[in-house]
């Protein structure tokens, strides 16, 4: 059976939301930065099991420094969410806990993945130090550039969303 799930991808400006989706959907990457305006929608159908497929409708939201300002109507009916920050730019994760609190209010009971992207720009040692310093709790460390754990991120979320339904 084919199910459809709406997934919103959000986070601060330029953290790599669009790049992550592009890597997942078309397996490509570009160094050119094209700001997302409004929302861009793409989809990818993935097989979960022999009979079950899920069609992920990915809502790539424009970046915002202020999570509160995200348009609520874009979040309606969301099945799953991905919050992305940039491991190389502390400004994108310094207020992570308050950002997440707002998100939980806006998206109650919606499974959420916390993703540190651009892992290729920072060494593992540095990442560890950062996580300790800011007490970060992260589900996936990804790189849209190298493709590291990008598929795993989306696949995990898809499994999570189809398990309960």
């Amino acid at each position: 059976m084919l199910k459809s799930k709406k997934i919103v991808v959000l986070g601060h400006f330029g953290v790599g939301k669009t790049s992550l989706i592009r890597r997942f959907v078309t397996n490509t990457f570009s160094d050119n930065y094209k700001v997302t305006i409004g929302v861009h929608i793409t989809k990818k159908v993935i097989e979960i099991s022999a009979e079950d497929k899920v069609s992920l409708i990915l809502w790539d939201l424009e970046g915002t420094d202020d999570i509160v300002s995200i348009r609520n109507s874009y979040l309606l009916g969301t099945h799953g969410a991905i919050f992305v920050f940039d491991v190389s730019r502390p400004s994108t994760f310094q207020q992570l806990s308050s950002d997440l609190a707002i998100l939980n209010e806006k998206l109650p009971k919606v499974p959420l993945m916390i993703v540190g992207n651009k892992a290729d720009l920072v060494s593992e040692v540095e990442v560890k130090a950062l996580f300790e310093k800011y007490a970060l709790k992260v589900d996936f460390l990804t790189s849209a550039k190298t493709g590291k754990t990008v598929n795993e991120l989306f696949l995990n979320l898809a499994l999570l969303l189809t398990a309960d339904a």
Partner: protein
Amino acid sequence: MDENEKIELLKDILFANEYEFEEKISKRVAFLEQTLKERGRLSEKVDPIIIHQIEEFKKSIPTTLGPTITKTLKIEISNHKDAVVDALYPILGKMVKKYVAQEMKLLSSQMNNQLGFLAFWKRKIRSTYSGKNEQALILDDLNETKIEQVLLIEKDSGILKASFTKSETIDEEMVSGMLTAIKSFVEDAFNKKDQDLELIEYELYQIHLQNFATHYMAVVVSGTFSLSSKNKLQDVIFDFYNSYMAMNLDLVFDTSKGSKSIIPVKRSQLEKELKKYFLNAKI
């Protein structure tokens, strides 16, 4: 020799030549006069003959000289083909082009006539039955309002629940999401909770949006979408909603019948229903 003889002799010596000369001259003048007169007379007679002959000659050139000229030309042409082609190409090229264009025009007009012939009778028959005049029907044909696609979309998530389409061209799931995003954006921007976005125009299409409790329908229409078309379309949509969708998707119950059973809906079932309502709907 007497005196008289001497005088005559002297006269002869003195004047003989002159006399002869005078006689010669007068003879000559007479001859010339004669010739001139005769020529004038002659030309009167000869000129028409000459003119006639010339005319005859002109007429007879093609038969008399023609073959010779042609033969000469043929030889010249075969000996200088390239030169001839160069000389004739611009003229022939134009002629050929014009000819082909003309033929094409003729052909296409013939085709149009034939197609037109069928369409003509179709309209005639329709006009006798519908009572509309033919011009109106021709315009109708050009602007005919057609339902191209129907999308049944979950309001919040923008997820496509079912669709009916005449030709599969777009990714309906992505379009459904996009439409929902546009709808949310516009409705948010105007910040009026009880107002819904009703129509989106996209290139040659109009997308009519009809809201229900938990779902909305996006109907893609081509042609002129008049107020009367909109009313007819809404009738079809509401028919579908009342007889099928309300019970099964919106969980709105017909309290007069006291029925509260919800039939689980399969996409294939929904699409069968959509097709039933929208395939032959005239709007």
